[in-house]
């Protein structure tokens, strides 16, 4: 039984904003299925009551003083922009509140 379907792969591609060509989606479904089959070994590990590790060092996050400093000069901030308008980043029309 396959662990991931083509439909799911395409849904993930949608979430990740990737378009997959037909053949690519097909190939990736197979590859991801193989990988998921491999990682499914974890299901055998007894983890009842085991705290998850999100971070290898058990520290508290350091806090920084609230002191403002100038950031990048506007031309440095915009220099890499694929398309700038004034000092803004230009993109195709955003539908208000909608997700792109």
């Amino acid at each position, binding site marked *: 039984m396959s662990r991931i379907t083509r439909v799911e792969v395409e849904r993930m591609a949608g979430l990740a904003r990737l378009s997959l060509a037909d053949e690519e989606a097909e190939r990736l479904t197979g590859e991801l299925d193989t990988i998921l089959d491999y990682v499914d070994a974890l299901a055998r590990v007894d983890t009842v009551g085991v705290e998850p590790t999100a971070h290898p060092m058990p520290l508290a996050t*350091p*806090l920084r003083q609230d002191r*403002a*400093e100038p950031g990048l000069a506007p031309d440095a901030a915009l220099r890499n922009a694929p398309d700038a308008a004034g000092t803004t980043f230009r*993109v195709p*029309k*955003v539908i208000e*509140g*909608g997700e792109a």
Partner: protein
Amino acid sequence: MSATGYETVIGLEVHVHLKTESKLFCRCPVRYGEEPNHQVCPVCLALPGALPVVNAHAVELAVRMGLAVGGTVNPRSVFARKNYFYPDLPKGYQISQFEDPLVTGGEVEIEVDGGARRVRLTRIHMEEDAGKSVHGDWERGNESHMDLNRAGTPLIEVVSEPELRSAAEATAFLRALRGILRYVGASDADMEKGQMRCDVNLSLRPSGREGSDAYGTRTETKNLNSFRSVEGAVRAETARQAEVLDDGGEVVQATMLFDPGTGRTHLMRVKENSDDYRYFPDPDLIPLQIEPVRIEEARGTLPELPERKRRRFQEEHGLSESDARTLTESLALADFFEAAASRGPVRSVANWLVRDVLALLKGRKGEIEQTALRPEALAALVALVDAGRVTASSAREVLRELLERGGDPEVLVRERGLEAVSDGGLLEAAADEVLAANPEMAERYRGGDGKVVNFLMGQVMKRTQGKADPGAVREILIRRLEG
């Protein structure tokens, strides 16, 4: 817009900018109205390799707010990534808190139609703001322009339980919340500046089910940025859902937008199960840990909160509810009042503050602490009025001066010759002149028209440049008219 037969169930999610100098995760200044992308750095632009570091003061303010509403400040909370794509969201995820928020629980007391009630909070969590679209000369119809100055501004999101039942309650909640935010110094919460924004979750259920925890399908109306639009959105969405239900339809779970122009809500996007933000703990940030002793320290520095202060003002100073409410709207004003009231007649100080000082401040668009007026000066001025040594209208003139330049009212009154005229001879002469010039007034008075006294008084005041003691003038006039 009536929704007969339904109960409206409202929960609010309020986003509030915290009052910090720098952003939540980088040192860029937080300022409003700057040129686009003039307050950005590798971190808030999400350049490759940049990393977040938490602003201590933002945490402090969020903790204060949590304590002020009586919530539990969790000694350990976790920053998580909320993943979605949007051009105002530079990293492709927002750093927020999800499973382990900074504050759980708490409540806000609201008053509607004279009845007080506590609205419970679900949580308060910290997160960063996104950038925004701006408009400029270069604009064409099919493009948007991104300004990331706001990206990374520290926010708290205050989430209420679905315990509000009307537009009035929703705005009362926001007002109460704003009062607390300002008192604890967490935020200026100026909705006009976008420092406080609100999402309204709203559903209807048939009347008679009050108190049950069965809810209808809810919609979320997003990004409301004024009390008026919150009120409008609640009314519009209540009406819309009622209409759908009345027609036998079903409310669809959706995100709505409110158009203040038409006063209607419209569908922005249907919520699907595909809304999948893939929250997970941000590996760039270790959990936020706050020692319990720090939490207790913060608790010790909280000011008396608006509702409690208002009640105390009513009880201790005998103020009306309305005056007490006005005087507790800002902590600075309340403190000013108490300082002045300790040096002068309490009721008169309250009256002068509420009526005159606030009216003058409104014209100046300023706060009391930004003026030259000192509490002791107001107390002294009010005492002069009460003693009949200055008339109200002269006192207003002095007040203007005190707001602008400060000073000692006693000295100002003397320098400007504003002392009230209570010299009997002078006033009687003025009254006689006025009566002689207006013989028909005496007729009307004798005919039973008592209001003419006011007119005649005005004339006498005019002749004395407003310096006449009104009580004395009235007495003289009546004596003459009766005689």
